[in-house]
């Protein structure tokens, strides 16, 4: 029995060395694919959720994302809906858009922001609710994950907090 356990121990040691050598060539790639195959996605509080619909405007479009409702009771993040104006380069200097969030024919909010020529300049968002689905915002820049406006690549991303139901 002691001989058997010794053989097993040294076998394990050899396999460990093999694993260390195989790591960069086989293991990392296999593990990466395995984790990717698990169907995980980034939490929508960070990613903004999946796109739900698009609203076409002359020269650009508004992507409306599915509302994000944090499931965790103690989360600092509130419920919000993300909207993205794209392409940012085609936007007028002043954007003022009435947005129907769910395609029911009723305007839910009016969003206003200026688009400076300097891509690094800060952006400020004003939102006027129409119908009680969202909360008003005044001169919000990058306040929190649930109320912000930011330039991300070729998109102007906004997040507007939802009114409590």
């Amino acid at each position, binding site marked *: 029995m002691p001989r058997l*356990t010794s053989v097993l121990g*040294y076998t394990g040691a050899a396999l460990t060395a093999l694993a260390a050598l195989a790591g960069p060539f086989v293991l990392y790639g296999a593990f990466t694919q395995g984790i990717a195959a698990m169907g995980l996605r980034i939490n929508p509080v960070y990613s903004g959720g999946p796109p739900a619909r698009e609203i076409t405007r002359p020269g650009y479009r508004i992507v409306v994302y599915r509302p994000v409702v944090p499931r965790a009771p103690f989360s600092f993040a509130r419920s919000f809906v993300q909207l993205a104006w794209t392409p940012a380069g085609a936007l007028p200097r002043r954007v003022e858009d009435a947005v129907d969030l769910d395609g029911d024919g009723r305007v839910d909010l009016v969003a206003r922001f200026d688009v400076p020529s300097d891509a690094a300049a800060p952006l400020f968002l004003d939102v006027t609710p129409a119908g009680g689905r969202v909360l008003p915002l005044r001169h919000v820049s990058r306040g929190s994950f649930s109320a912000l406006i930011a330039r991300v*690549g070729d998109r102007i991303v906004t997040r507007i907090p939802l009114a409590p139901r």
Partner: protein
Amino acid sequence: MADPVVLETTRPAPRSIGRSALLTLPLLLWALLMFSHAVDLRENAGRAAALLTCAFMVALFFLMVRTRRTYRWRRVFFVALGVLFPIGFIAQLYALRGSMSIPVERMLSGDTPFCFLAIPMLIVPAALTRTVIFPGSILPTASNPHSVATMIAVWFAATLVLGKAWCAFGCFFGGIEEGFAALPRKAKLRDLPPRLRWVPWSVLAAVVLLSAATFEPTYCMWLCPFKAVTEFPEVRSAQTAIQFAIFGMLFGGLVVVMPLLTRLRTQCTLLCPFGAFQSLFNKLTVFDVRIDRSRCTDCVACRRACPTLVLDEAAVTAGGPGISCMKCGACVDSCTKQAAVWHVKGTPIAARPETARLLFLYPAWSFATLFGGSIIAGSLAQLLRPLLH
């Protein structure tokens, strides 16, 4: 308890240079292979960094083999990693965006590089909702090669090989406090209550439970001292200001001041939940450190040498430090009776300790060369670029 110094020991004579070189040869080949891919060899700085790092890692391994000691040479690598990683990282941040703070745009676009410290907190939320509570990307992208899947894959492979020895051979933060702990000759603060070594387990339990309740990576948001030397959310509210203050205090206290006072790795010993998490995987590895009770004279040299308070009186009596041992080699190198030994599970204790040590060092140093060595080479390349351009 006196200072955790590694005492001079009565041990076998150093291995001959020829035999040491022969045993180092596989590592040399491995290092050459790794560094040919780790940095951009088309530029002078890349070639110089690759050469320097290769020579550095191979030389240290040669010295470990020749002197039959582990801790002293491993520490040189670890401190170099702990110093160069933040330098390279911060330099990159300033080159990219002129600041260490993470702009919200980076989080919204999923470009935040994934940190392994977040892994324990992701498990429950991912199991409940299949979402990852980290503002990164699942798969690597051009702007974010350090994706969730990639870094978890690296961690998993490393854990299979090292177990908790990640904390001594892989963690690019641990070397910072190990460097500070090595500076003073004597500890000014001694006899920390041994029960404090349970705090990392409490931190692990608390951040896992709170992350499941809040769906936010609690440790990253409130407790990570290494935010002070990497990147942190922009300070633009009372909450982020408090968070930044906490990061700074923890770094200053546990990573700088306490190691200088105690000569211990106090952040690892008193806070790090990832270390506690890695301890759970120490059962996977076939290597451990044991105390041969037939040779031990209870001189407490090993206990003084242990940098993380793992080796207490009960552990020595029980014949080994248990699952929280990070296999740094301090206790083995300090033992004057060769009672503290490297060991392969299943084999008789102290039967072939040097064989066990070498069998452990090959995979451990291979991983260290691949992972830590590539970080060192990358940072060196950045520092040398202005000089060698």
